C-alpha cells in the first residue's frame, strides 16, 4: 500500500504542484491549507510523513508540528519554508523540532529524495 503524506501549506499553488509530484512518485497525498484541516486529517487518516510550511495564515508552522507530534511522535516531519535559516540555527534549533529542513527553492527531486530517505524506502 502506498505511503500517506500530509502536506500543510497555505499557498494553493505549492500544495497543488507538490501533490502532483508526490502522487507521480506513488505516494498518497492529503493537502491541508490550515492547522484545523491538518488536525482533521491526522485523526481520520494518520499520515506516514508530514510536510509543513513555517508561516501559515492562521498559525505558526512549528506550533502545528508540535501539536501533531503529540499524536504522531514517530512520524517524520519536513519543514518546507521560504525562510532561509542559518545552518547553525538548523543544527541547534530546528533539528530538535523537525526531521528535516528544506528551503522552498529546493528542487522537487531533492524533496522526493528526502521523503524517500525519511520513509526508509
Amino acid at each position: 500500500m502506498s505511503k500517506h503524506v500530509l502536506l500543510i501549506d497555505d499557498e494553493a499553488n505549492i500544495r497543488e504542484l507538490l501533490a502532483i509530484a508526490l502522487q507521480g512518485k506513488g505516494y498518497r497525498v492529503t493537502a491541508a491549507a490550515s492547522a484545523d484541516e491538518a488536525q482533521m486529517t491526522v485523526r481520520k487518516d494518520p499520515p506516514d510523513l508530514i510536510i509543513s510550511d513555517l508561516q501559515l495564515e492562521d498559525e505558526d508552522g512549528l506550533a502545528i508540528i508540535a501539536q501533531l507530534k503529540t499524536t504522531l511522535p514517530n512520524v517524520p516531519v519536513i519543514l518546507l519554508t521560504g525562510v532561509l535559516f542559518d545552518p547553525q540555527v538548523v543544527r541547534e534549533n530546528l533539528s530538535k523540532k523537525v526531521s528535516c529542513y528544506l528551503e522552498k527553492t529546493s528542487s522537487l527531486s531533492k524533496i522526493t529524495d528526502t521523503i524517500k530517505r525519511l520513509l526508509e524506502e
Partner: protein
Amino acid sequence: MKEKAIRRILVIFLLISAVVVAVAIAAVRNINQAIAGSDWVNHTHSVILEADALRSDLFLADGALHTFVLTGDARDHGACSEALSNVEEDLEITRALTRSEPAQAAQVADIGSLVEARVAFLRSVLSARQSGGADSVRATLASDAGGAALHKIQRALEKLKDDELALLTARDTASYLQAQAMRYTVWTGVVLDVLLLAASGWLIRDDIAARRRLAEALEEANRGLTEKVRERTAELESSNKELSAENLERQWSNQALEHQLRYNHLIIDSINDLVFVLTKALNISRVNPAVAQATGMSASDLVGQPLSRVARAAPRAPGEAAPLADPLFQALNAGRDLRDLPSVLVDKLGRTQPAVLSMTPLRDRDKVVGAVITVRVQAPSPASGG
C-alpha cells in the same frame, strides 16, 4: 520470383497437355489404321476363299461332265450345269473383290480368261454329249487329255492365293510395326508426362518452400517491427515521463523563486527604518515604504535621484552642513560599513529631521556593486526649517 515459378509451372502443364493430346491423336489414328487393316484382311481372305471356291467348283464341273459323258444321265447333266454356273458366279465375285486392286485385277483377268475358256469347252462337250452320245465327244475329250488347261488354271489360282497370303504377311508385319510404334509412342508420352509432372512437382515444392521462407521472413520482420514499436513506445513513454517531470520541476522552481522573491520583498517592506538601495554612484535604485511615509516622496519620485536628495550629513556645528557624499564614497570604495552616522532627513517640503544612517556595501560575488542604507529618524516629529 513467384510469378516466374507460376509461369514455369503453366508452361510445364501446357507441355503435359500437348503430350497427352499428341498421344491421343496417335492412338486414334492407330485405331483407324487397325480398323482399315482388319477390313483389308477380311477382304483378302474373301479373295482367297473365292479363289478356292472357283477352283473347287471348276473341278466339280469337270468331274460332273465326265460322269455325264459316261452315263448320259440327266441328273449328271444338271449337276454339271449347276457346277458351271457356280464357277461363273465365283469368277464374277472374285473380279468384283479385286476390282479396286490393279495388280490382283490383272491376275484375275488372266484367270478369268482361262476359266471362261474352260467353261466354254466344258459347255461345248456337255452340249455335244447331250445331242450325240458318248462317241461324239470322245475325240474332243481326247484333245483335252492330261488336264493341262485345268492345271494352268490351278497354278494361276495358286499364284493369286500365294500373292494374297504374301500381302497378308506384309500386312501383319506392318501391323506389328505399327503396334510397336504406337506402344513406343504411348510409353514415351507417359514417361514424358511423368517427367514433366515430376518437374512441375519440384517447381511447386520449391515455390512452396520459397513462400514459406518468405512468410517466415515476413513474420520475423513483423516480430522485429512489433518489438521496435514496443521499444519506441517505451522510449516515448519514458521521454514523456521525463518531460512531465522536468516540466513539473520547472513549475515548482518558478513557483518557489516567485515565493522566495515575494517573501524577501515582504521582509524589506516590513522594516520600520528607512531603507535605500543605492548604486555605486550613490543614486537611489529602490526604497521601502517607510521612506515614502517619512519623506512624503514616492518611490517613483526617488528612483534615479542622488541620496543627497533626501539625506544629508548632520551639521558639525550649528549652521554648518558637512557633505554626506564624501564619507559614503570613501566607505564604499574601501568596501567597509558605516554605522550610526549622524545625518538629517529631508522631506518633500524641504523640512529636515535628525537621523542616524548606516551603510553596508552591496556585494555580488565579492564585487561591490552598490550599497544598502538604513536611516533611523531620531525625533518623532519632523523639525521645521530646511
